[in-house]
């Protein structure tokens, strides 16, 4: 099982879009894929057709206790091999409730260890703020994807994210490989071009080779509640995410054929 987290402390940079598009691609390639929504806003949860205000069990349940019925925490989506651990609005209260309680940053990674034989890929959508949920995601993942909108303000957000990441890695002890993903790239604008150049100059070693272009179909797909790859396999944005996926899969050297696994829940 490979665990990828999508994080950036800035909102609206394409985190949720990245998580659901990669998950859609992976599941249609035949991999059992679990999406985990760690954002109290629950965009990924709503996108997948669940209501974060009324959903019963999900990520929040993991923090409540030890006796967790994984079958009720993990929901089947409308799509084959695509599963969701939903966010609920109550997630917003976790930091208040838990503070910096010892070991509470490892709740997710402990849960994932229990289900490691059931899924091929796990995609974690992170909240845009630093807190116990973000720490859990960064502690549980084997690869971190950091989407950065190609505009100047977003670059400041990236610096903040890198700083946070470095600090967490010191506590986590095992460093995590990460990939910076330029998003909403519009080659006609100077802002896009210049910020991409800035990324190439400063983060060359960890930069994804293809930026994700602006593609209005992402918003439409999100409104329809369907991952874009399931609507249009050849949309510009999907093609770019396919390149990213191949790169990441290559990185983790798991590009070989999927082996069918029955997920019985």
């Amino acid at each position, binding site marked *: 099982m490979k665990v990828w987290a999508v994080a950036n402390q800035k909102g609206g940079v394409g985190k949720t879009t990245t998580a659901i598009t990669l998950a859609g691609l992976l599941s249609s390639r035949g991999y059992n894929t679990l999406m985990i929504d760690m954002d109290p806003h629950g965009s990924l949860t709503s996108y997948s057709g669940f209501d974060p205000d009324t959903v019963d069990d999900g990520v929040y349940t993991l923090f409540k*206790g*030890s006796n967790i019925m994984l079958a009720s925490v993990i929901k089947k989506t409308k799509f084959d091999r695509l599963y969701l651990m939903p966010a609920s609005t109550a997630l917003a209260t976790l930091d208040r409730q838990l*503070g*910096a*309680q*010892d*070991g*509470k*940053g*490892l709740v997710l990674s402990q849960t994932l260890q229990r289900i490691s034989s059931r899924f091929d890929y796990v995609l974690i959508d992170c909240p845009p703020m630093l807190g*116990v949920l973000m*720490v859990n995601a960064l*502690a549980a993942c084997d690869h971190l994807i950091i989407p950065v909108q190609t505009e100047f303000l977003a670059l400041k957000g990236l610096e903040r994210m890198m700083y*946070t990441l470095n*600090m*967490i890695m*010191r*506590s*986590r002890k095992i460093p995590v490989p990460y990939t910076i993903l330029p998003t909403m790239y519009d080659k006609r604008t100077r802002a896009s071009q210049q910020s991409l150049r800035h990324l190439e100059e400063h983060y060359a070693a960890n930069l994804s080779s293809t930026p994700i272009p602006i593609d209005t179909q992402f918003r439409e797909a999100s409104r329809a509640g369907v991952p874009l790859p399931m609507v249009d396999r050849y949309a510009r944005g999907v093609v770019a995410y396919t390149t990213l996926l191949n790169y990441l899969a290559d990185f983790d050297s798991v590009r070989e054929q999927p082996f069918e696994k029955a997920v019985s829940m």
Partner: protein
Amino acid sequence: MNIFSEQPAVVLEHETALQVYFDALLQDMSGSIYAEESQKSLIEEKILEQNNILGPVIGIAEGSAPFTVNERRVSSKVPTWATTPFQSLLFSTYGVKMVVPLIQLHSIVNLKAPIKYVPSNSAWFMGILPWRGKHVKVIDICKLMAMKGAEFKGLEESAHKRLVLINDGSWGFVCDDVSKVFTLYPGQIQWRSDWTHRAWLAGTVIEHMCTLLDMDEFVLHISGISPAA
């Protein structure tokens, strides 16, 4: 240890604050003092197990079928659990010896982490201790008993080393230490005659000249008057 549980005197430097926060959250509990504690309480459980008395303790913790008021006592005096010989734990708090039946206990924990102070009007409610994902409400039995009359003097001097968890582990009382597990026979107990008032003070163990506590009654009592309940 949770350094955020107490009000810091000064605000930490930005980077130090973050590092301490991450270190705490990502602390591998298998090497922490909590784990040490659970290790110890496991060892204690092992010893109890060897004495063939763990069964009832676990039974209470898992099933925790509360008695109904009618079932709690066979006669007006004797609780059901005391009609046959029963294992009990001798402990001391502020130097005062007391006995509880093992069957009513959940676990015994070394008190190393600080108890989180929770504001309340009751001197006997000491606060909350995070333990294995639970928030244990911590009680000072001596202060609870001393509420009426000043039977216990110099309460402040004592150092509590242990926390005895009762019920489903959501309550616990502090004690100086636990000293031994032994069998009590119903005949060794002088039962109190007045059950209407502080029924959790069940009787006196004549041989040890100490009070026998009934934790079922105790939990009923503190759930009724506790600020945290």
